[in-house]
């Protein structure tokens, strides 16, 4: 792990806290699924926490992100609250999207999260457009586009990278390479080199250990600062791993990846365990203090789940609201 660089230990502790919040959120979401309390299904971010947190901690609240089907981690990392998130997952009125979006469309506009997306690669244009806005209006916001290794197969990525490069847009393409797209290994669906694909468009590209939150944050800080001053776009490939199945229902997965592999990542490369040991070793926090953080987050999550389970569904009259901005009920 990299040596301490931030001058303020609060920054480190916030990163730790945010990673634990993501893991805790996901554990609860998984429980909701397993106990049949959640409608539909969902994709867990557990294991990839250092990616979202390392990057989002380098962003301001008005900087934008676009997210994916595996979007809870990005949402938490960009500043969202548990209550509105769980409400959304359960389709409740107080959810971030009034229950209309659910897990795959969770968004949090107040913190610059333009939303999860159920179309693989579907948000690449959106992220590039957000960066276009920043340039046109001179806002200095930077946009980070999160997507998986599988999404690199979508042609849209190359179309927008070309434009971002030609117009030097303040966007960072963050490829979360977790080794799989659904039930298929990345090397079976990606020819050549992912980094080289970005570089071919004249985009500076970096690979980083996605399980090392400090390394991720360090790189992100630098690239975000450069993008902000017109030195973008950039591409980052973050090597990471998802602990659960592709979605919560993907339980028997021996046919596409081994338990030994999963065990290795969980035991030897877990981003939270690694960072926690480092915090303790560097004397930034005691183990007890970190344990207290965990407990506090667990309690917060339990409360939020409870709240969401008891919250009310949107009234049926909402069904034709929000089709158009200027028509209260589209079908009235």
């Amino acid at each position, binding site marked *: 792990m990299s040596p301490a660089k931030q001058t303020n230990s609060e920054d480190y502790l916030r990163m730790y806290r945010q990673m634990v919040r993501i893991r805790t959120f996901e554990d609860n979401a998984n429980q909701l699924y397993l106990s049949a309390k959640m*409608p*539909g*299904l969902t994709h867990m971010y557990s294991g990839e926490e250092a990616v979202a947190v390392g990057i989002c901690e380098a962003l301001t609240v008005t900087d934008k992100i676009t997210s994916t089907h595996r979007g809870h981690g990005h949402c938490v990392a960009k500043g969202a609250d548990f209550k509105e998130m769980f409400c959304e997952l359960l*389709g*409740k009125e107080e959810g971030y*999207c*009034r*229950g*209309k*979006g*659910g*897990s*795959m*469309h969770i968004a949090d506009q107040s913190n610059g999260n333009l939303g999860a*997306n*159920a*179309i*693989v*690669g*579907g948000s690449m244009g959106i992220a590039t457009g957000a960066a276009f806005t920043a340039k046109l209006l001179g806002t200095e916001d930077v946009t980070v586009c999160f997507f998986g290794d*599988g*999404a690199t*197969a*979508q*042609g849209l990525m190359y179309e927008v990278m070309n434009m971002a490069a030609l117009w030097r847009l303040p966007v960072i393409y963050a490829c979360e390479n977790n080794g799989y*797209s*659904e*039930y*298929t290994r990345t090397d*079976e*669906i*990606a020819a050549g080199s992912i980094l080289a694909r970005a570089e071919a468009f004249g985009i500076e590209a970096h690979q980083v250990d996605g399980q090392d939150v400090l390394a991720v944050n360090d790189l992100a800080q630098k690239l975000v600062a450069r993008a902000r001053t017109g030195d973008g776009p950039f591409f980052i490939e973050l090597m990471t791993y998802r602990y659960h199945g592709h979605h919560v229902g993907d339980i028997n997965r021996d*046919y*596409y990846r081994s338990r030994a592999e999963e065990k290795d990542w969980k035991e030897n490369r877990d981003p939270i365990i690694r960072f926690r040991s480092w915090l303790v070793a560097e004397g930034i926090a005691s183990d007890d203090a970190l344990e207290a953080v965990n407990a506090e987050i667990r309690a917060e999550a339990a409360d939020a789940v409870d709240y969401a389970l008891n919250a009310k*569904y*949107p009234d*049926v009259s*909402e*069904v*034709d609201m929000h*089709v158009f901005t200027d028509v209260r009920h*589209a*079908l009235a």
Partner: protein
Amino acid sequence: MREITLSQAVNEALAEEMRRDPTTFIIGEDVAEAGTPFKILSGLVEEFGTSRVVDTPIAEPGFMGLAVGAAMTGTRPIVDLMFGDFIFLIMDQLCNQAAKTHYMSGGKMSAPLVLRTNLGATRRSAAQHSQSLHALVAHIPGLKVALPSSAYEAKGLLKTAIRDDNPVVIFEDKLMYQDKAPVPEEEFLIPFGEANIKRDGTDVTLIGTSSMVQVCEKAADLLAAEGISAEVIDPRTIVPLDEATLLASARKTSRVIVVDEGHQSFGVTAEIASRINEKAFYHLDAPALRMGAMDVPVPFSPALEDITVPTPEGVADTARKLMSGEMIDAA
């Protein structure tokens, strides 16, 4: 007769046709070892190998385009599009290329491919995984469109689709994959353009497509209990459309409701209702009515999603109004 699930029916149809014709192959995401997320294709890669059951990268326009070229040069691709909502990604290859190849070449080339995908809401999958977009492709000349309503049709129509020399789009109802229906062991095909009269009736005709056939049948049950005799018809393919059967029924009952899970406006119900109004007008006691899905993106919340699609109760209700002459709107 033995009963199998719609998923098994599809699997059998594919296996039989792939055995029959070595130029067929399946292409799509996670179709091989995984057998698709719906596990429909289990066992096929073991029998036919990875050269004929081809896992692709997540590149729908790419593999659809590849299928068009493969079809034009002597193979019969069966494209697996994981969700019907992704059809938006492949419209150019499907509608600008595949659909027009035969015509633009003056009949010299053709693109005999099948696009298998699905439709249907109420699975809590939200706006981008729940759409029923068959009306869009039905609007494009050169494409045939099949909408199986049970395991039986899923097998018979898919086999016909694979042997058809034109591009065919077949939409399975994803909520029906585990539903069982009687399916003969012996080989059978269901010809395109032949509607199926699921139930005879005299008072009102319920025309339902795909998932809505069951809804119409349940509505007919509700109506039967009240002494209203509903005829239920499943067109099975909307391109070609068996107008004759639909018109005969309309002329007989004088009252028609068309039920489809696509959005109502500018959708399938409009076309079918229009044809009936046009060609059976003087036989009708009331206008042919339409019930499609609400014109709203599909909401995630179960509280909202369930009311966006036609239900047996809703269809029965509309039928009752038709019967009682309560068509105030049209007056």
